[in-house]
């Protein structure tokens, strides 16, 4: 296999900037037809291999033999190449461009796609109407009997919502009976009525908000929903008002579980050009057992926060599209909720100094403002400057003004070890329920340490 004699035809496809883009070859096997083997070397996601042999190993022995010959310099650069090579390579490049959004293809049949969307919206609306009645039933009948009920009680409703394609609402229902978790804490078990009622109230807010805006045009006035409750107040201009409304609707749709496909985001999403500083990430488990990673970025010029979400199977670690301690200059494409974002095209990445941060009060203000846009927010990134570990009731992070926020102790020791108790820039996720969850600390040399 690794002898030139077995390969009557072979060649190297030269990349635009020189160097090998791909290697291909036709290997004489025992059968009449040669095996067609190729390796694509400069793909975005690392090398890829192809071979017409029946082996299920990737790369197979033919590709390995070919690469071995290539590494010994016995495969020549060639301008011409067989059609199967051209077809495979252009297919790969097109797929990559679609993925990075360089060329978003139009839907094959716009009318059919629109009909599918309408059908989905109808299903979601029907599911949420049922949820609304169910919520009212719980509160009318009283919560006192709830602890006697089994998980069935919640699962039935959650399953109904999954069927209605409202996965977000479904997982909020699943979380209803959890006594620990977000705002549970040590006495969560004793205060279950408080936890449960909070969650019922927030779910109610979501359902009412969604149903009030569903079907209504963007200009229509919506009396209830997130906006009214979160008190976003009067707007100075109609533009801003319209934008806020669109944003609120998008948040509602995202929270209910109507996701926007990445292709769509790349094609029509808001593009923001900036130098995006990577603040850090936190991992968690989704209700259906997948691992998810939230990576937070902040634009140096716009001050805008962006959230990159990735998922992986329980046994895998989710990807980090951005490297800790770096900044990426270029465009991000935002989901309609204005928060979740994906890379649009190529970004220039380089190591970055610690991001600018603020005080505890500034962090809380930023959280309150974010809550006004999305009251269901679970965690919000904050960057504290000159923060020091402090002890009150448990561990806190304190700013130079003496104000502090409680900290969850998960990564406490690494954080303490890196700072030595000296002021440092620390990026964390904040939630009133769990406190600060440090993501990144910049050490005395300005180097980012992921926690």
């Amino acid at each position, binding site marked *: 296999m690794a002898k030139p004699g077995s390969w009557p035809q072979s060649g190297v496809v030269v990349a635009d900037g020189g160097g090998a883009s791909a290697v291909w070859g036709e290997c004489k096997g025992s059968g009449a037809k040669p095996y067609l083997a190729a390796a694509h070397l400069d793909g975005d996601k690392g090398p890829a291999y192809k071979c017409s042999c029946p082996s299920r190993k990737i790369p197979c022995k033919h590709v390995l033999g070919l690469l071995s010959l290539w590494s010994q310099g016995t495969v020549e650069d060639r301008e011409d190449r067989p059609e199967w090579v051209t077809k495979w390579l252009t297919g790969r490049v097109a797929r990559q461009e679609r993925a990075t959004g360089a060329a978003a293809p139009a839907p094959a049949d716009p009318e059919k796609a629109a009909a599918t969307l309408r059908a989905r919206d109808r299903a979601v609306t029907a599911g949420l109407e049922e949820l609304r009645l169910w919520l009212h039933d719980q509160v*009318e009948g009283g919560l006192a009997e709830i602890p006697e009920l089994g998980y069935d009680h919640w699962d039935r409703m959650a399953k109904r919502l999954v069927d209605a394609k409202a996965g977000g609402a479904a997982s909020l229902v699943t979380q209803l009976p959890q006594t620990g978790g977000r705002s549970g804490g040590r006495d969560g078990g004793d205060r279950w009525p*408080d936890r449960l009622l*909070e969650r019922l109230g927030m779910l*109610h807010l979501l359902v*009412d908000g969604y149903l009030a805006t569903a079907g209504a045009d963007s200009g229509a006035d919506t009396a209830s929903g997130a906006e009214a*409750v979160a008190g976003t107040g009067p707007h100075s201009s109609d533009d801003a008002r319209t934008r806020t409304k669109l944003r609120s609707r998008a948040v509602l749709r995202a929270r209910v579980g109507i996701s926007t496909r990445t292709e769509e985001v790349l094609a029509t999403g808001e593009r923001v050009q900036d130098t995006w500083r990577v603040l850090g990430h936190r991992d968690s488990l989704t209700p259906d057992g997948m691992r998810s990673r939230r990576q937070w970025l902040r634009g140096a010029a716009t001050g805008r926060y962006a959230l990159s979400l990735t998922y992986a199977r329980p046994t895998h670690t989710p990807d980090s599209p951005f490297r800790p301690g770096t900044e990426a200059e270029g465009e991000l494409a935002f989901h309609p909720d204005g928060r979740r974002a994906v890379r649009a095209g190529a970004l220039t990445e380089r190591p970055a100094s610690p991001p600018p941060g603020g005080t505890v009060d500034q962090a809380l203000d930023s959280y309150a403002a974010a809550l006004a846009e999305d009251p269901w927010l679970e965690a919000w990134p904050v960057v504290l400057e000159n923060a020091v570990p402090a002890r*009150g009731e448990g561990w806190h992070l304190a700013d130079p003004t003496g104000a502090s926020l409680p900290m969850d102790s998960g990564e406490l*020791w690494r954080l*303490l070890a890196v700072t030595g108790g000296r002021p440092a820039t620390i990026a964390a996720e904040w939630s*009133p329920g769990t406190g600060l969850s440090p993501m990144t600390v910049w050490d005395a040399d300005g180097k980012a340490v992921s926690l």
Partner: protein
Amino acid sequence: MNDPRTAEVPPTPDTRTPAHPSPEAPSVETPSWDRLVSTALVGTSRRAVPHLPDLPRSRRAGAAGLLDLVAVDTVRTRAGYTAHTAEPVTPDEPDPRPQVGADAAHRLDAILANRPELLPEWLDLAVRGGRRVSHTQTPDLLERASRDSSLRPLVATAVGRRGTWLASFNSAWSFIAREPLATDVHTDRAWHHGTPAERRRTLFALRATDPAAARDLLAAAWPSENRGEERRGLLEALTVNLGPDDEAVLDQALDDRSANVRGLALTLLTRLPDSAHAHRLRSHLREHLDRQLSGGRGAPRAVDIVDMDVTAADQLRDLALVPPKKWPRSRQERWELGRVLVTHAPLDTWTERLRLDPTGVLNLAEEERDLREALADAVCLQADPDWARALLDHPGSGLAQLLRSGAMSRHWPRTRELFAALPGDERCAAVLAALGPADDPAEQTDLTPHTDSGWNSDFSGERGVLGQVLHAVGAPWTRELSEEVVRRLARPLSRRDARGYRFLCEAVAEHMPPEHLDLLPEQPPHEEEGHAYLHLRETLRFRLDMHREL
């Protein structure tokens, strides 16, 4: 008044509540909240939605109206979260040592993840190089040291001041504060006003620079030290620069009420062969031997030590023992006491009294397994090189016989401690001598009858035992030793040798100097056990890089 819900709330709904929630407290904390909860518990079919002064009037009735208010109250409480105050911690003292390089830090990550057996070597190299570990790795190392106390001295030095500072916040790591560091400086303040850990360390520091002054401090403070654990911790300082002048303090500690303190005092006294205590033990033992030898039976073939009379109060005290509750009757009980005397009495008592060399004494004890073991313990404890050689070279039961037997004997003394009595090169030479000439066919045939008759679970073949012995060398191998070990690896392999072969590979991987990597051929000598061999080569290469980085 701890319930945050009783906090004052301004009447307007969009104003921040001054409550102070924390992760331990519920997040919804307004005076109206309890009314909302109680209504929800009873159910809106039975109780009307309340009108609450600090919330907007609900536009809807029933469940929807109540849930509207719940949502408003929940969101405003979250949005209105206010800061706490807390006491910043005192920063640590800066550590003047440079951090290990980035490559070395990455290697430590790899060791912590996959090769824990190399951790002591990495730490030792870093500490010798005068470097500290990267701060991020400190918690991980403290965690390891909390589980494995043998790592503590190295970890304490490697993590330095940052580690000590960090450990002060976590009681599971409190051991680190007690570990003396070479950089410690004695201060009167620490000795008179410090925590027990600080006092111990400052005493160690003084002991290193001025042994007599440290001893005097300890002697003066001794009567007022109330906790046995702390007395022992302080007495341990005498292990540094132990000398004949320490005898008085140690002798006093033999009367301590804590068995741990007495035991430590006895161990330290055993290292002072010219002390009055040593002479007393000599005379106790000699007295017994005299009784044996004057039995009129002529020259003894064997030494019967069972009937040692060590129950006299002064003897017991010299052996850090308390008088037994009842008179020891059984042979076994009497021997328990006699054994302590044998292990602690200077070994020269035997050679002088019996007018034999160590090998001669061991020959006499050949039939007395208990005595032989006790003598071996004495050799380990007293770290006597002549006796250690006698044990290793003994023609009937030395290292060579052990290797040939193919199984680690339970009666074999602690190899590591025996070796510790000898200089490093001599340890390597002893192993080489015990292995004998490389191509001695007799050795291989020797193995067969033994394995047929004496198959047991300890059996791992000559190579397996060699592996165990090599683990115990505890000094850099000479090139000759490495060469011989490589030859042993290449010898023909039978199926039942596989386990021993793998064991030997592990020992070589961990202990052979990595610069001897060139002795190992790239191709595995035995195809069927190729994996173990390749792993061995990989580990040596890994260690070679590690040595270069540190």
